[in-house]
């Protein structure tokens, strides 16, 4: 079984499943509203030149996440 890692550690073109959102309050709410609930498949589509933000495909939409946020989302490959 692959270990948990933050979403920002997933390479371009790879996908993973959300296991946990490591934050509370409004940030957590926001991430959950974007569809990042446990079990959701997320695919890293591309990265900006400096590596931040990253574009991830979540439930049919591509969304940009800053490293601040993508570091809070724990995933399993």
């Amino acid at each position, binding site marked *: 079984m692959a270990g948990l890692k933050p979403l920002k550690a997933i390479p371009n073109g790879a996908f993973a499943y959300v296991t946990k959102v490591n934050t509370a*309050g*409004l940030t957590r*709410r*926001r991430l959950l*509203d*974007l*569809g990042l609930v446990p079990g959701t498949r997320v695919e890293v589509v591309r990265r900006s030149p400096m590596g931040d933000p990253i574009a991830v495909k979540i*439930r*049919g*939409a591509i969304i940009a996440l800053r490293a601040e946020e993508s570091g809070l989302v724990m995933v399993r490959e």
Partner: protein
Amino acid sequence: MGSTRKEPVIALAGNPNTGKSTLFNALTGLRQHTGNWPGKTVLQTKGSYIYKGRKYTLVDLPGTYSLLANSLEEQVARDFICFGGPDATIVVVDATCLERNLNLALQITEITAKVVVCVNLIDEARRKKLKIDREKLSCLLGVPVVTTAARGGEGLPQLLNLVDQVVKGEIRPQPRLVQYDPEVETAVAKLVPQVKAVLGDLVNARWLSLRLLEGDLTLIEAVEKLTGKNKHVPCGWC
């Protein structure tokens, strides 16, 4: 509140880019007059339409993914649905992207039962070979569902009819509410009577209790404004 008005007020809510404004224009035709200027409370567009000899006011709310108030738009949409007392709310969802859109539909049915879900862009969905099981969706959500293609006018008569029936109480939607963990439900059960004691039927007590548990401060402000306690002090932002 709402039912005593002569002209029923219908709120139009939905994610951004679901064709809400197209629907708004299709329904209101040339009668719409826009009042969409930047400012704290007026991020809505109002218009009207006549159905079966009765005038309805339609309020186009800002497009949002959620009602849990992270941004000004969400706050405006939430406050209107929650405190504006619409006689019915149309939730516009994108047929090609239902999964993302239903989050908002669930959040709205948690606040009010007087909801009609309008699965728009059904023409796009057909092109993508997606089939929408309208009856199943209606059954799962517990509210009436209609499929529309606002651009071509498809489904609009059915939508207006459902809205009319919900306003008159001929249809009483029974939304299937989300059941939370026992811990949360216990806490909600404790809070609800206290919220009711303070606010009566002004606000959906279960929903407000859930938000209080989340520690949503913007909502407390909104309630204070509503009850006239702690009158808002002009601050230059509003």
